[in-house]
Every structure is written in structure tokens, then in C-alpha cells.
């Protein structure tokens, strides 16, 4: 037994570093990760991840919460399963006025809530107004700000009587915007824009989101809940497109441990291990498996400088540090190719958006800039620290960059890790020198990233502001012509990149595991997946053969 102990330890260490067990199951010429026994019938099982905090689409904020909302509720529009382009949802059609300000939505006839109560355009007026009402304290209320009068009402500066929302009759919903917003239709797919049942909320108050009370209008009905364990759903019989929902049951586990989540997938207990739930040390080993899918995700990982503190109030210092980061090496060696090196603030994939050229690795120029700023070969550079929230991945990247700065610039940077709450407070209060940050877009437009750097924006957290930048963004918001608007945004991004406020490092990817029998689940840049199109293909072996 004494001899067995070190063996056990090695075994355990290995199991935490690499996917455990065999080399995978080979079927139809492909290698699959773990069990190949499909569920019985049309049952879809996946890991929802961290327990959702809120089940009220109007006030919620996180991704697991959003996944719940997209099953149980439905907005005016829904996302295409591949492109995420807005398609008719509760609205069957819409018209947009030539000035881009008035959206008229025509509701589907005969819409009802899952308890049979009719659902009309008035429900949308009430729900959107509720999100904006200050006492609702909805954390994503600002997504509704394009609507006329919305911002003032939400900030408590008006009573909301001039809000651009109207329902001239039960089946027509008219939205008037304050200024044209190119991505408004896309916004209406978002959970904050989903209707909520007034009759239930007025009766149960905050407890309307408990399983016994909740009433929705989406493709699925919520039937079971055990906190930190699972959610269960069945198709909603009152849903307008019930005929096309093929799943009979959906089980969404709430497992927040990445190893456990991937083990469950491997053992065949789940059919889908969504993005973010593969432990990062496993990623390098997952590529050979046919169930591993990776694609670009709308997010970037970067460092931000506190521009209110010396020496980072000097743009030359910020630029020097930005140019002395070898992103290729980090992505290739450290992240094993699971992330793409990235030298820009906005991610890729916005239709028609041509962002500024990416910053690269140029140690020569970096040294020259640092010398100009008064620190030749790093001499006299003050002690600064690099803050990150506690995580093994953040630490490894920080150590690599620390070493690069030491090697190329001769400066010493201390690493400082803090637990999540302390880290958030430090960045919000500008009590840091350099901080790790990341941002995930809310909608498919560069604005969802660039907005952050507006002077005074709560997510800026750098102390930097530039009136030219703010003016460009404001002007772009008022511009109707799409190409011209995107050019302005690119100009703004170039300006921010030149000011080196954010130091981009990598582009996020989605990395997920999908069993071969799952159909209708596609990778998307927002990692949003409409589950009503999903079904289980019990004939998957034959169908797989038929495909190239």
C-alpha cells in the first residue's frame, strides 16, 4: 500500500491535467470522447453550468440565466440557429420607418401564455416599461436606451410618460427610438426584451419565478428544479410553433465544476458540454475528438492601464508595454492554440466592420518609446503591479507577460492576485496599475465594445477619456448609413488603440463537446443556442456515414 500511494497521487494529478481513461471510442472512422450510448427517446441533457441567479428575463444578467430565459420565454424576434440573425418570434412581421426611428411589430394571432391567458402587444408595453422603471433595478436596462425617453426614465429623470412604446391595438406594438439604431432588431432577440406575465407578477411579486408560479411564452415549460442540481423542461403545449419542437424532455444540470462537467459528458450523462466547461488544461488534448467544436466567440481578453497613475499617464509608456507583448507565443505555447492571439479591442465577425490594424510585437520600438518616456532600458521605472482575479490561467498569462517585459524592456512588474470581489472593487475604484480584464459582447455590433471606453462609462475603469472619441461614438449613433457608421466606429477604435488604454491579448473561442446524435445545435459567435430546433438522431451512425 505504501508503494501504491505515490502511484495514486500521480494518477490523480494526471486525471486533473488530461482527460482521463482510454483514447476514445472509434466509430465510423472517427474518434469520440467517451460513451456512445444515446439517451432513450427525444431527451436532451446538458450542463447549464453555474446555478442561474435570476429567472426573470427583465432583470437577469448572466449566461446561464439567459439560457433559461431563451427556453421558457420568447421575444418579438428569435435568433437564427446559425447566424443569430433576427427571425420572426412572437411578432410575425415588422416594418421600419424610412428615418429608422419607428418600428411597428405585428404580433402573431392567438398568442397565449403557458397558463392560457392571451398575450398581446400590451404585455410588451408593460414588460419593457417595467425593465426601465428604476424600482425594478434591472441590470441590463441600458440595452433599452435606444428607445425614446428610456434613458431619462430609467435614471429617474422623467416619469416615463413620453416613453416611445405604444400598443394601438392588441396585435400591434409600436416602438419609437430616440435615434436610429442599426442593431435594434437584433436587440429584440435579447432576454431583457422578452415579455413577462403581468397577471402572475402582480399576484406573486418577487416569487413569481418559483417553479410553482412561473408562466412563460417560450417553446418549453419548466417542470422541475433542485438548486445546484438540475432544471427540467417539457415542450410547452401552448407555444405557437409546438409542431416543430421535437424534443420531449430537456434536462439541464447546474454543475459549476469544469472537471465534473466534462466527466459527466464523457460518461454519457450529458449530450452537450457547453463552451467554458472544459478545463483549460484539457483543451490541448481535445482536438483529435470529433465531438470537440471550437469557433470564435465574441469576446476579447486584455489588460487595462490605470491612466490616472504615473507612469501610465504617459501614452509612450502604455504603448511600449503594449508593443512588448508577444501574443503569438502566449497563444501557441501557453494556451496550446485554444485561443487566437488578438491585437484589437473589438473581436472579429461584425458584418461590414473593418477594424483598425492589429497591434503586433515590436520590442525595438517598445524600447525606443520607453527610452523617450525617460526610462532607457527600464532604468528608473517605478514599481508597478499587475492585478488579476485569482485563477490559474490568469496567473500563467501574467507570468509570461511579466517575463516578456523584463526581457524586452528591463522593467519589473509585481503580480498581485485578488479574489473576485476585491478585484472588482479595485478596478472600479481605480486602485490598480495594470489590471486583467475581459469583455463579452451583448449584441452583434462593435458598439457593444467601444461604448465601454466612453468617458464616464461605468465599465471604462481606466480613467481615460477623449472628447474626440466620445464625439465619434455619438455621431456614429446618429448615422443612418451603415457603412459610414461603421467607418466612424473603426476610426474611434483606432484612436483608442493608439492611446493604448487597453492592451489586447487574445480573442475568445467557444470550446464545446457535442455528442454525435445531437442535431440542430450550431456554434454561434454569441454562444447563444435556440434549443427548440434541437433533436436526437437515433440513426446517427448511418447518417454520419452518409455525410462527407
Amino acid at each position: 500500500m505504501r508503494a501504491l500511494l505515490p502511484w495514486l497521487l500521480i494518477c490523480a494529478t494526471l486525471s486533473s491535467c488530461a482527460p482521463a481513461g482510454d483514447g476514445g471510442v472509434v466509430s465510423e472512422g472517427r474518434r469520440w470522447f467517451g460513451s456512445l450510448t444515446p439517451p432513450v427517446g427525444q431527451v436532451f441533457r446538458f450542463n447549464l453550468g453555474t446555478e442561474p441567479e435570476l429567472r426573470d428575463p427583465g432583470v437577469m444578467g448572466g449566461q446561464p440565466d439567459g439560457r433559461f430565459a431563451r427556453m421558457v420565454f420568447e421575444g418579438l424576434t428569435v435568433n437564427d440557429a446559425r447566424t443569430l440573425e433576427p427571425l420572426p418570434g412572437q411578432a410575425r412581421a415588422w416594418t421600419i420607418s424610412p428615418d429608422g426611428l419607428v418600428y411597428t411589430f405585428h404580433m402573431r394571432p392567438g398568442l397565449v401564455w403557458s397558463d392560457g391567458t392571451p398575450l398581446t402587444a400590451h404585455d410588451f408595453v408593460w414588460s419593457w416599461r417595467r425593465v426601465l422603471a428604476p424600482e425594478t433595478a434591472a441590470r441590463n436596462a441600458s440595452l433599452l436606451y435606444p428607445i425614446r425617453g428610456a434613458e431619462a426614465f430609467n435614471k429617474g429623470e422623467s416619469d416615463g410618460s413620453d416613453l416611445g412604446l405604444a400598443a394601438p391595438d392588441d396585435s400591434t406594438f409600436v416602438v419609437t427610438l430616440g435615434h436610429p439604431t442599426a442593431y435594434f432588431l437584433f436587440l429584440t432577440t435579447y432576454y431583457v426584451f422578452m415579455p413577462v406575465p403581468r397577471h402572475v407578477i402582480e399576484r406573486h411579486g418577487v416569487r413569481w419565478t418559483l417553479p410553482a408560479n412561473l408562466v412563460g411564452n417560450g417553446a418549453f415549460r419548466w417542470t422541475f428544479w433542485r438548486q445546484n442540481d438540475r432544471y427540467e423542461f417539457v415542450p410547452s403545449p401552448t407555444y405557437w410553433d409546438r409542431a416543430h419542437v421535437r424534443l420531449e424532455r430537456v434536462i439541464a444540470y447546474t454543475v459549476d465544476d469544469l472537471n465534473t462537467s466534462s466527466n459527466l459528458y464523457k460518461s454519457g450523462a450529458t449530450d452537450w458540454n457547453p463552451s467554458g466547461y472544459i478545463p483549460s488544461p484539457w483543451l490541448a488534448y481535445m482536438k483529435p475528438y470529433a465531438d470537440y467544436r471550437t469557433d470564435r466567440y465574441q469576446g476579447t481578453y486584455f489588460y487595462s492601464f490605470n491612466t490616472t497613475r504615473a507612469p501610465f499617464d504617459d501614452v509612450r509608456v502604455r504603448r511600449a508595454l503594449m508593443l512588448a507583448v508577444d501574443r503569438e507565443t502566449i497563444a501557441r505555447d501557453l494556451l496550446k492554440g485554444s485561443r487566437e492571439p488578438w491585437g484589437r479591442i473589438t473581436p472579429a465577425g461584425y458584418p461590414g466592420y473593418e477594424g483598425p490594424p492589429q497591434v503586433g510585437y515590436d520590442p525595438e520600438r517598445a524600447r525606443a518609446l520607453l527610452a523617450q518616456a525617460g526610462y532607457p532600458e527600464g532604468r528608473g521605472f517605478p514599481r508597478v503591479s499587475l492585478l488579476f482575479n485569482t485563477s490559474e490561467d490568469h496567473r500563467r498569462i501574467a507570468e509570461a507577460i511579466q517575463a516578456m517585459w523584463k526581457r524586452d524592456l528591463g522593467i519589473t512588474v509585481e503580480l498581485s492576485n485578488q479574489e473576485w470581489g476585491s478585484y472588482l472593487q479595485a478596478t472600479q475604484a481605480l486602485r490598480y496599475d495594470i489590471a486583467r480584464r475581459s469583455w463579452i459582447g451583448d449584441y452583434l455590433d462593435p458598439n457593444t465594445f467601444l461604448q465601454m471606453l466612453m468617458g464616464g462609462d461605468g465599465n471604462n475603469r481606466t480613467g481615460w477619456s477623449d472628447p474626440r472619441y466620445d464625439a465619434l461614438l455619438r455621431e456614429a449613433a446618429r448615422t443612418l448609413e451603415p457603412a459610414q457608421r461603421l467607418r466612424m466606429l473603426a476610426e474611434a477604435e483606432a484612436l483608442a488603440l493608439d492611446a493604448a488604454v487597453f492592451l489586447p491579448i487574445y480573442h475568445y473561442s467557444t470550446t464545446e463537446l457535442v455528442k454525435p446524435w445531437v442535431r440542430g445545435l450550431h456554434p454561434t459567435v454569441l454562444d447563444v443556442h435556440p434549443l427548440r430546433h434541437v433533436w436526437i438522431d437515433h440513426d446517427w451512425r448511418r447518417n454520419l456515414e452518409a455525410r462527407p
Partner: protein
Amino acid sequence: MIAFILRRVLLMVPTLLVIATLTFVMMRLAPGGPFMSDKEMPARAKQELMQRYGLDRPLHEQYLAFLGNAVRLEFGPSYKYPDREVRDIIVQGFVVSAELGGWAMLVALVFGVPFGVLAAVRQNRPEDFAIMTLALAGVSVPAFVLGPVLVLVFALTLTWFPAALWTGPESRVLPVLALSVAYIAYIARLTRAGMLEVLQQDYIRTARAKGLRERAVVLGHALQLGVLPVVSYLGPAAARILMGSIVIEQIFAVPGLGRYLVIGAINRDYTLVLGVVLFYATFLMVLNLLVDLAYQRLDPRVELA
């Protein structure tokens, strides 16, 4: 006896007050608050929430309000899961943790005590060495190593048991095993030590001298006093094991109570943390009281003072 119990229960009150106060102060000293997030929440919304939960009131008022609520066992809604009362969360988690812990405790006693007795009776012989080596290994291997190894061997390779989740009876096996191994080992060591001491006592020699069979000496006379160290260990062990091990709950996705302590602290979910801490403290003290009562029954020399 009644007076003893009454006095102990009364003594719990100041202890709980101190624990509650310390937890309250430490939670408030931690940077951040329950409504912080990666994406900035609008100032108006934050203000609204602070008001809703009374967090805008002076700290001493909040403290008094919290104490008042605690006395009525009303901790209010969790900040993170606002549609749920802290009390409901505790009850739901405890039912699961108690089941997991109860099984683990049972397994630990059923295996630990006999192993310990056997090792003591066969002191310095191969059986003793084998058991004590195993026990040493059992105590030394932490749950976060043992858990993944069990999953690797029994769930992913042999596929005898589920890899995680709290579903049918088969899902109990691995977490119970992972949780109980350290306790089996520790209980075996305690039993052995207790038995060795007792076996040298005069009354055991008397028992042997009057011609009792060794089996009757060990099980009939020695065991009762030999397990005393185990009994005194049982209180804190039961509290720890019944509250569920946070690590085991994490590895096996068991929806128990232990993780709320961690999640609550990370999220600065003040009401949830205070509720769970007070529940745990009370539970621990009640168990210790039960241990003292059991002690007195087993060892006639012990008097309840």
C-alpha cells in the same frame, strides 16, 4: 441531567451571539458587496437594491435587524437568489448533506471500529501493521485526490457507478466512499489506541483470570470503554461530515449545504452566509451536547457537572 442540558443550552446563546457578530463584521469588512458585477450595474439600480435590502441604513441598525431576524429564524431572502428564503435554501441543502453524511458516518463506524479492535487485539502482528498502514494512507489521501481517482476508476473506466449527480441509489456510492475513507481510517486508529489502553487495565485482567473467553473479554468488557475516544470524536466529526464536505459536493455535483458557505462568501451574499454559519454552529453545539450525554452513559466514572 435536565439541569445540565438546560445550562448547556443557555450557554449556547452567548456563543452564537459571538459567532453571529464575528461573521457579520467579517462579511462587511470584505471588499465589494452583493451587487457588484463584472459589467457595471447602473447607479440607480444599485441604489434601489441597497434600499430594498436595507443595506443603505447605518451599520448598527442593520446589525440589530439581523440579530432580531436570526432569533426568529428569519434570515430573509438570499441576495443572489432573491426569490428564495435563506431558510428554504438551508433546509433543501441540509436534507441532501444529511443523507450523504449519514451514510458516510455509518460506513465509517461499521468499518472503522472493527478494524481498530482487530488491530488492537493483534497488536504488532501482520494484521495490525496492514490495518494501520491502510489507515495511514486513508488519513493522508485528501478528498480532492481520492474523489477524482474513484471517478476515474469506477465511473469512467469500469462504468459501474455514475460519474457525478445526485440521482438514484447508485449515485450515492462514490461520494459516500470518498467522504468516509478518511473517517474509517481515523476511527480505526482511535479505536485501536483506546482498546490498547483498556486492555491493560486491572478489570480486564480480572475478567481474563476468571476464565472468560477472549472474545467476551474484548467485546463484552473492553469495547465499551475502548470506543470512548471515538465517541468524543464523533461530535465534531458528525457535524463536519453531516454538513457535507465542500470538496466532495463539488467533485460529485451533490446539491448539499456545504457549497453555499463558499458560494455565499464569494458572492457576498450576507444573509445566506449568516444563515448557514449560524445553522452550522448550532448544529455543532447540539452534537457536542449529545456526545457528552453519551459519554456519561458509556463511562460510569464521568459525571455531568
